[in-house]
């Protein structure tokens, strides 16, 4: 893309995209740390992750400010307009991801006070995929690469599948022994939070696709979370009615 005739316009756009990338890096780290706090049973690290949410919120406000300034002063058109509105949406998706990471950290802190549970082991695998999605979707944003964004979008199915099987496993544990209910509920929420982060990463992927092509993505994403249809772990099919 050639530069604008007015150089300061390019500088302002670069500042805005820079803020988004910093936010992205921060929430990626927040998630990684929250999972480490869970595995290492480290309440101090968990507390730090919760604190880390504040600077992310601050960056979101910074993006808001930069976007409003650009809209008011530059009257952006076409691809610039799409970049600016896309960035506004992406920052709110990233902010939500940060909130979920903080919530994972809170529950990790609670879980560190009770007996370890076996299903905890699945969480890092799920989280690694979502961390990869966040990283790749930010790379796609930086490179304005719709294909790479689409690849992220498709990967969300895998996250949903892990979540479904974990959901089933946790229900079984809870039925086995009512004392498992508290830790398993925390784990279930942690898994749900990570699954939601994946959904926000796919939102960002859709936004990037629109930013690059100018047309909304009309392909319907296969919805993988089948647990809303579940009544008991015994009648849960391998693939739920909503699965592709």
């Amino acid at each position, binding site marked *: 893309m050639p530069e*604008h005739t007015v150089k300061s316009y390019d500088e302002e756009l670069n500042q805005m995209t820079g803020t988004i990338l910093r936010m992205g890096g921060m929430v990626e780290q927040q998630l990684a740390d929250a999972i480490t706090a869970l595995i290492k049973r480290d309440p101090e690290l968990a507390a730090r992750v919760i604190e880390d949410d504040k600077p992310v919120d601050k960056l979101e406000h910074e993006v808001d400010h930069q976007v409003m300034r650009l809209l008011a002063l530059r009257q952006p058109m076409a691809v610039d307009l799409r970049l600016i509105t896309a960035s506004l949406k992406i920052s709110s998706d990233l902010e939500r991801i940060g909130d979920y990471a903080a919530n994972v950290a809170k529950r990790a802190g609670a879980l560190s006070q009770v007996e370890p549970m076996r299903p905890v082991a699945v969480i890092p695998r799920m989280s690694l995929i979502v961390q990869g999605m966040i990283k790749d979707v930010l790379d796609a944003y930086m490179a304005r690469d719709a294909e790479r964004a689409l690849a992220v979008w498709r990967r969300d199915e895998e996250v949903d599948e892990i979540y479904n099987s974990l959901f089933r496993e946790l229900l079984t544990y809870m039925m086995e022994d009512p004392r498992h209910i508290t830790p398993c509920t925390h784990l279930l929420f942690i898994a749900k939070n990570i699954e939601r982060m994946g959904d926000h990463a796919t939102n960002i992927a859709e936004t990037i696709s629109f930013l690059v092509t100018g*047309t909304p993505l009309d392909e319907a994403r296969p919805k993988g979370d089948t647990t809303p249809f579940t009544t008991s772990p015994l009648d849960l099919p391998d693939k739920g009615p909503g699965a592709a």
Partner: protein
Amino acid sequence: MATPAIDAKMEISGLDVFYGANQALFDVDMKFAENRVSALIGPSGCGKSTFLRCLNRMNDIIEGCRVSGDVLLDGNDIYAGDLDVVQLRARVGMVFQKPNPFPKSIYDNVAYGPRIHGLADNASELDEIVENSLRKAALYDEVVDRMSAPGTSLSGGQQQRLCIARAIAISPEVILMDEPCSALDPIATAKVEELIDELKEDFTIAIVTHNMQQAARVSQYTAFFHLGKLVEFGDTEAIFTNPEEKRTQDYITGRFG
């Protein structure tokens, strides 16, 4: 280039224009939709004003100017040998960049066209035409008390609306506007833009503007010219949100070298 389906009031095809040895327009095909506003945008010297002037043969008076190709108004060639140019310009009116009222009263500025074209049989009919034209140009309430004051005593924005009233007094079908707001302040500009939006109910409007936000605000179709060629023509919304041509995108986003 995907040309939108248009119920054309004017249809231009294969238009070439030369000033002496210099070619100013190259093989332009375009349609003006009836009762719609079409904006012509592009950098200085791209040929948009030349193009506008072809639509009512204003180029005839420029020495060394040659026009070839078809310019049809309601399907009839306006460059046909037997065509009455004065009649043509009554059907295709024009508003210029700088307000240029006649050195006459406000009333006479508007009454001038209907008088020479014999559009009124008596004084009361003429009064009616003048009043209607001033009302359509959203100027009537501001000048009703001083109809005999000179047109030049009005403010710039009022003068431009007076020129618009003068143009519509002879009931043209098409109105050509060449940068009608470039000499006006933002409030007067907003009034003229509001007026353009109302005028499209009765007229087909073509407007040349350097102000892209203005083109985006007032028009339904936009044509982008560059180096004498029509680069892209389409729905205004599509041109300003997601143009097909890279040159259009570079121009409207301010990336032109």
